[in-house]
């Protein structure tokens, strides 16, 4: 009888161990499943973000030609070299096309900034008031960026509609070939 009782206790003990092992195994399986699901969800989110990125890149791809054109235009607005010859030629053409006489152009000392170099210059023109307005409008349109810093208009002759215009302006170049 005593042997039988011991046998029973052993059986109960073994069953308990088996139960604990089973619970541990199930818990482990559940945990690894949860981790795998979390990994899958993170990957899914990552994929959707990459998809959005691709969509925006595809948009950029479609705009590439326009962007390149704008970059080329901006390279004219602020060239890589001073190109004073082109600037003077452009000023002369603009002045002549608006019946203004470009009397004088003089450059001041260039000032280096972080990303660009400032080219201050002064010009003197003679002509009529309305032509000056058209000239300034034309100057604003480019192709080169010109910042007008000051204008001084004086009458040349009280009886004639002729004026003398002194403009202090500034243009720029990037200096990073």
């Amino acid at each position, binding site marked *: 009888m005593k042997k039988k009782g011991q046998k029973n206790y052993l059986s109960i003990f073994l069953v308990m161990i088996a139960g604990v092992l089973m619970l541990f195994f199930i818990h482990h399986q559940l945990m690894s499943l949860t981790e795998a699901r979390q990994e899958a969800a993170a990957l899914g989110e990552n994929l959707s973000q990459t998809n959005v990125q691709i969509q925006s890149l595809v948009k950029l791809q479609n705009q590439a030609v326009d962007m390149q054109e704008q970059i080329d235009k901006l390279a004219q607005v602020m060239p890589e070299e001073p190109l004073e010859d082109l600037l003077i030629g452009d000023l002369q053409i603009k002045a002549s096309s608006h019946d203004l006489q470009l009397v004088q152009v003089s450059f001041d000392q260039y000032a280096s900034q972080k990303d660009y170099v400032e080219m201050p210059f002064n010009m003197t023109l003679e002509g009529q008031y309305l032509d000056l307005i058209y000239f300034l409008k034309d100057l604003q349109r480019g192709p080169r960026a010109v910042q007008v*810093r000051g204008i001084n208009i004086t009458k040349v002759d009280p009886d004639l509609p002729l004026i003398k215009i002194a403009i202090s302006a500034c243009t720029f170049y990037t200096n990073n070939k």
Partner: protein
Amino acid sequence: MDIRINLLPPEIKYQLEQRKKQQKIMMLAAVIFVLFICLAVGLQIAKEKVNRDIAKLQQQKMLLEQQVATLKPYAELQAKKEQVDNRVKKAMGTSPDYPSLLEGIGLYLPPNIWLEDFSTNLSKNSGKNETKDNEMLNKVNQVTEAVAGKVPENVNQAASKEKQVVSYGEVMLRGYALNNFAVANWLKELAKFPQLTDIRLQSTAERENAGDIFTTFEIRASLAEPKDKKSAGQRAGE
């Protein structure tokens, strides 16, 4: 009547009962074991499925990353464009719309005002000139008030403009007029210009030339930058 009599000895009866009990426990254990096996297999299958999904997603991710690498030059192009654009904007800053200002002055110049000198200068500390204690000046300012009403409209407009805009340059206008009324009216007109703020009459003086009496004047104003105005750099880059 069915009468069943068990003649087995009590030990054997006990053994039989014990065996039945053991069989029941064994059955229960078997059921629990089967349930455990089912649960374990189910979990394993689910895990395998999720792992297969992960492998698929990783494959997709690799493909998408390749696509991103192919399209990367376009992002670089945009970055370059923004860099160049910002450099031009930074260099140009904001400049006054001189053509509009000159156009306005030319268009709305009264017939009894003649301008002789117009000059502008970009500077940060302009437009802070104090009114001089000048008898003639007070007279003209009184006339301005009389023309515009008790609380001059142009003063209110100028004040509201000053609140909205940032002064960053100065304009000086010199010329002559028929009389002080003409100058006062001209001041009122100038106050309507969005490009000008803090308009101050510096001086007026009566002069005589070839028997005609006229009034010379000097007006100073600050250049104002309208909020919606584009910089010259933007205009040139358009």
